[in-house]
């Protein structure tokens, strides 16, 4: 298919300005970079993490007063799907040692380690077993495995990359356990890239002092997820996995301990009471909230459910204001929207251009600044391209690369990107790409300690839904390590807690009643019902015809 005739017309403007820009580039000249003062202004005004617009103090709960993105704050100020007075908590449908909520990388690791310690485990997930952001991580997984490296350097790189805002005990756990996690995965039969003598193939990444990025082809996360899922299936005697059945409310016993959750079968619309001695939240990130309308690289189910459940029960967050954006996500063709375009393209000399084919920013600003300048060009200047599916985009002039470095450079240096676009009829060595910033990762989340404990006894959490380990900026390869290391820890620690002899007392939903009272007192009118479980991408026209929803009739009531 390639570009539409209309977009091809616009590309002519890019081609028209190119000879002059190439001439500049050959002389080593570029669009001037911003001064530090100018950076602060554009960040303040246009970077979603910095700008005040779209952010506000949350009105209720343990983090009351904390300034968060509107989409996040709104979900934290939400009410339950269920009316507590109608729920019979004495009729227990499932009884287990450990309840794991979420069946991605962290959930499966937790379930397996809890099972290793002799626990009966129920693992629930709102989609299929293994549907998670873990599956989508391509690049790799960090661990200090070589002789020139050590947990010390993993700690250093991680906390420096996070601008020293990380929670130290979490970073220590991550760097300490990372090699153990890799060893565990190897023993489960994961196909790591290895040298012929068995040594792991490890590479550098942004912000690394040592080669620490281990991988399995260019689908490391998918390989991890396949192996963990298969192992969990092998242990069906101890681990029951229930698909399309999320947890929609935590249960707290009369002593204040977490005693399980209420589950919701999304296919039959039944609710079930699951009593558990320990509960592990591993529900993943929030890319699908599309903060400020951004596209994202995330899985369909990344809707922040775990943070919502915990917050309502009194568990606060860490770094929840911070989200990772990548400046150059694909905005055309539609099937690639949100996918990352590596920084390398700009590193090789490609300019970033507006609809007139003009440069409007230095192409190698720091990620957050580059993102802000692109957003500014679209929203304030009004010179972004509008794609046939109604998306903003700016041109990334990749054909310059071959012109600057010789024919064949694009193919050689960017093989995966070349093939990805070629599949859709676009030769990026001859035609520019359309890009726009994309949401990538939930940096913050549920507050935990180095052993995955929350402030509620019996309630643990692990993975992208937690906050603190990455601080305000995550390094590549630490997300996969996060889910494995903290998933394992959560499983071990929860099992220790169960095995020490726990008795769940009478279950209550008092925290829900109390929180809704707080909402009313804070003047939150018509709070949304959450967790939202899945995003809704229907058009306004379709939504306006859904009269049952328009009238506010909720099936769950």
């Amino acid at each position: 298919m390639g570009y539409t005739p209309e977009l091809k017309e616009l590309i002519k403007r890019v081609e028209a300005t190119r000879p002059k820009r190439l001439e500049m580039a050959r002389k080593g000249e570029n669009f001037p970079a911003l001064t530090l003062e100018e950076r602060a202004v554009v960040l303040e005004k246009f970077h979603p993490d910095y700008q005040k617009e779209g952010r506000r103090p949350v009105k209720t709960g343990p983090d009351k007063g904390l300034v968060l993105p509107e989409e996040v704050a709104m979900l934290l100020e939400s009410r339950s799907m269920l009316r507590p007075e109608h729920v019979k908590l004495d009729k227990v449908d499932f009884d287990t040692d450990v309840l794991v909520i979420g069946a991605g990388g962290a959930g499966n690791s937790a379930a397996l380690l809890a099972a290793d310690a002799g626990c009966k485990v129920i693992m629930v997930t709102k989609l299929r077993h293994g549907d998670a952001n873990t599956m989508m991580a391509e690049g790799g997984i960090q661990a200090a495995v070589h002789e020139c490296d050590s947990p010390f350097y993993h700690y250093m790189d991680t906390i420096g990359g996070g601008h020293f805002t990380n929670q130290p005990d979490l970073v220590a756990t991550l760097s300490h356990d990372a090699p153990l996690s890799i060893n565990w995965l190897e023993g489960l039969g994961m196909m790591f890239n290895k040298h012929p003598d068995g040594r792991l193939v490890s590479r550098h990444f942004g912000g690394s002092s040592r080669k620490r990025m281990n991988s399995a082809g260019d689908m490391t996360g998918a390989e991890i997820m396949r192996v963990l899922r298969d192992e969990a299936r092998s242990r069906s005697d101890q681990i029951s996995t229930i698909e399309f059945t999320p947890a929609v409310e935590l249960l707290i016993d009369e002593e204040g301990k977490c005693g399980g959750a209420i589950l919701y079968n999304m296919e039959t619309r039944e609710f079930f009471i699951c009593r558990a001695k320990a509960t592990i939240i591993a529900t993943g990130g929030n890319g699908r909230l599309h903060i400020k309308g951004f596209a994202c690289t995330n899985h369909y189910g990344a809707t922040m459910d775990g943070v919502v459940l915990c917050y309502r029960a009194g568990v606060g967050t860490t770094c929840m204001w911070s989200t990772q954006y990548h400046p150059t996500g694909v905005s055309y063709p539609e099937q690639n929207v949100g996918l990352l375009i590596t920084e390398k393209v700009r590193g090789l000399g490609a300019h970033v251009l507006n609809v007139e084919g003009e440069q409007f920013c230095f192409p190698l600003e720091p990620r957050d600044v580059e993102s802000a300048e692109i957003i500014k060009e679209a929203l304030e200047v009004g010179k972004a391209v509008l794609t046939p599916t109604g998306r903003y985009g700016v041109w990334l002039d990749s054909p310059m690369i071959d012109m600057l470095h010789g024919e064949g450079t694009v193919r050689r240096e960017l093989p995966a990107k070349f093939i990805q676009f070629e599949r859709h009829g676009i030769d990026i060595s001859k035609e520019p790409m359309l890009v726009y910033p994309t949401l990538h990762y939930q940096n913050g989340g549920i507050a935990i300690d180095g052993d995955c404990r929350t402030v509620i006894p019996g309630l643990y959490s692990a993975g992208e839904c937690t906050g603190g380990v990455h601080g305000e900026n995550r390094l590549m390869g630490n997300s996969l390590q996060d889910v494995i290391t903290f998933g394992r820890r959560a499983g071990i620690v929860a099992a220790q807690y169960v095995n020490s002899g726990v008795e769940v007392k009478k279950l209550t939903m008092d925290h829900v009643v109390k929180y809704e009272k707080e909402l009313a007192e804070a003047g939150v009118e018509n709070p949304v019902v959450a967790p939202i479980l899945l995003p809704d991408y229907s058009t306004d026209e379709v939504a306006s015809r859904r009269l049952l929803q328009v009238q506010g009739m909720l099936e769950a009531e």
Partner: protein
Amino acid sequence: MSQSESTPKKTQIATGDRAILPKGAKTIPIFIMGKQYEVPETLTIMKAMEFAGFQFLRGAGCRGGICGACPTVYRMPNDYKIHFGLACQTVVEADMYLAQIPFYPANRAVYKLEDIEARPDMINALYPELFRCVACNNCTKACPMNVDVLGYISALKQGDIARAAEISFDCIQCGMCASRCMGEIPQYHIAQLARRMYGKYIMPKAEHLQKRVDEINAGKYDGLLEKLQKMSHEELEKLYKEREREPDLAPNGTWVPQDAQYL
């Protein structure tokens, strides 16, 4: 597009994964399970279905072509071929006649990896139906990832676990191969077993990793990590700036840093 080549300030813009039909954009008819809908061209099947008003529970996953939740079967007019694609990766075409197959039953054998050996006859015993393959190649034709499914099934019949593991590596376990198999073989489950056998028993072990694991378990780094957690921002920043960087071209396991006190 000529109307909207530069973005008017108040126009409604597609947010997240929601598509808005821009002025003048063309729509095309597609048939979702036999029923006609008009959708914008250039959308993926997944987004076209959402545009039409479907909200997925099954049939959507990573939306990036790697999780296997959205396999879709379609036919085109005047073409006897059955086409396969992932809904999140395949662009709609006019008059496409489609249905999603979000789940297809396939039996997975019961095994514990630690109790078995990497031997072809182990695979044969767990999956005797492997030998019902008649090499019809429907599996390969159905694979949305272009995996040579018949190739890895043949490799397993030939007893070559390593080859089967390598050939099947891109499998996303969507189940389309099994749906088309006249031998009723659950190909993707067998491939999973082969890959895990290969990873655990046939690939060489990472000896250096085992050494590091032993060091960690012996508590070698506990004191160091304890100290780091108590360090001030300034101290950390100083140490951070002093880090040596492993040379890009140093092969793994060869470079020796000058400062060895933290290793």
